[in-house]
């Protein structure tokens, strides 16, 4: 009943919706129903992309955003693994730390912005920190639950072999929780892109979020749409990379392919 389509068929299916949307967009703008200042046509966006490419701004904006996302995501990954390992492996630490972290987690991301600006100024630090906060929690939550759900039977194997707590964590619990970590990292990276836009909308002179604000200020829908298209491509690309990493690191799992 749920037959998996073969590769070319799957590719065609996955392209059908974007192509349909593109055609609809083209028709809506070329038939004169919608004014350019309300919605630029695909051709305008392509032209804008060409201009940005030739004057080097495309790479300048992309590089700024990618750098912020990678930095923020990197910090989030390191701190989330650290905190989740401590919380996941020790009930007393969990009792002490987890409620606070859960409370911080429920704060809407933008509520941090004024504080971050006051503390860290309008430079890179505030942006990277905001992105790190956004990416931290999905990784943390998934890894803690992964550690909690490690098969007790595997832990017992370590126990009868006389492994100490640290050895048990390093050789049994953390490797067994790797699938959860990778799921968390994939969601965290998506969150990082989300928070990037929030960070760059505030105060920046380059980046995809800056393109959005600039386009709005000078009423250029082609620039706004170009930024949106680039964000979509970046998001999809980073998701694909994460899936490839998952596939490579989790070849030992016995589940259905994702």
């Amino acid at each position, binding site marked *: 009943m749920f037959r998996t389509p073969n590769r070319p068929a799957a590719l065609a299916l996955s392209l059908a919706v974007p192509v349909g949307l593109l055609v609809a967009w083209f028709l809506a703008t070329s038939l004169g129903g919608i004014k350019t200042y309300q919605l630029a046509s695909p051709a305008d966006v392509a032209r804008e992309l060409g201009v940005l490419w030739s004057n080097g701004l495309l790479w300048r904006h992309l590089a700024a955003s990618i750098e912020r996302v990678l930095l923020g995501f990197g910090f989030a990954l390191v701190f989330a693994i650290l905190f989740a390992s401590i919380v996941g492996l020790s009930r007393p630490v969990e009792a002490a730390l987890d409620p606070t972290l859960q409370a911080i987690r429920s704060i809407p991301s933008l509520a941090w912005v004024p504080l971050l600006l006051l503390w860290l100024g309008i430079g890179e630090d505030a942006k990277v920190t905001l992105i790190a906060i956004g990416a931290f929690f999905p990784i943390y939550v998934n890894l803690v639950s992964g550690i909690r759900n490690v098969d007790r*039977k*595997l832990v017992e194997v370590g*126990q009868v*072999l006389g492994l100490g707590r640290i050895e048990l964590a390093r*050789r049994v619990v953390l490797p*067994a929780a790797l699938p959860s970590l990778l799921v968390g990292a994939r969601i965290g990276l998506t969150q990082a892109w989300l928070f990037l836009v929030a960070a760059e909308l505030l105060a920046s002179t380059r980046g995809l979020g800056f393109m959005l604000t600039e386009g709005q200020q000078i009423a250029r829908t082609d620039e706004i749409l170009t930024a949106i298209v680039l964000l979509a491509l970046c998001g999809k690309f980073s998701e694909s990379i994460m899936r490839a990493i998952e596939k490579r690191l989790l070849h*030992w799992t016995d589940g259905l392919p994702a």
Partner: protein
Amino acid sequence: MRRAIEIDGLSKRFGRRAVFERFDLFVEPGETLAILGASGCGKSTLLRCIAGLVRPDSGTIAVRDELGFVFQEPRLLPWLTVEKNVAFAARSDVERARVRDVLELVGLTGAAHLLPKQLSGGMAQRAALARTLVRNPKILLLDEPLSALDALLRLELQSSLAQIIRETESTAVLVTHAVDEALYLADRVAVLDGAPARQSLELTVPSALRRSHTADLTHERIALLSALGIENRVPKRSHRGLRVVGP
């Protein structure tokens, strides 16, 4: 000679249910003792107490040599190959050098590079056995190690197990609910019943009839089945090697 395992006055409760109350048991060095009993009578708990996985409420358990534990399921680490799963238990270079040898002993040399998900049930259980053997433990605790396998495979692995126990000169405690498995592998069989568990019967398998799938052990079988409440005939106290314990 000092006993390999000596349990003295073991008591253990789970909540309000007493599993053991002042329970005694011993295992001689080099002996294979089978512990037989219905599901839930506490035989696995007994093994887990010996291995230190469960803490007794009172009583002493003296273990005079290094232990190895084989679980009912293989419990291989799914991210490691067979070889690395076996090497996982190795603590020294000497033990790491033994990995290939124990894989050969259990007949898995050709499967060393496979992941657990690529193994059949019998292969996985052999790999688990190899992981236990790599440390060369003098005492093997076997918690229904063959019960998840189909009947033919079980016979085959029973022979392998018997051979390995003999070659490694191990002391073994085998927990099982299969009468024939107990009679085939053990030198001595203890039957547990009731809650709290008590030893209701002890039986020594005649040495001439050990480790044979075709030996005529009808009397022993009847004695064990009746102790388990399956057969109605009462075993004769005077029968060879048979001791009815308790009331």
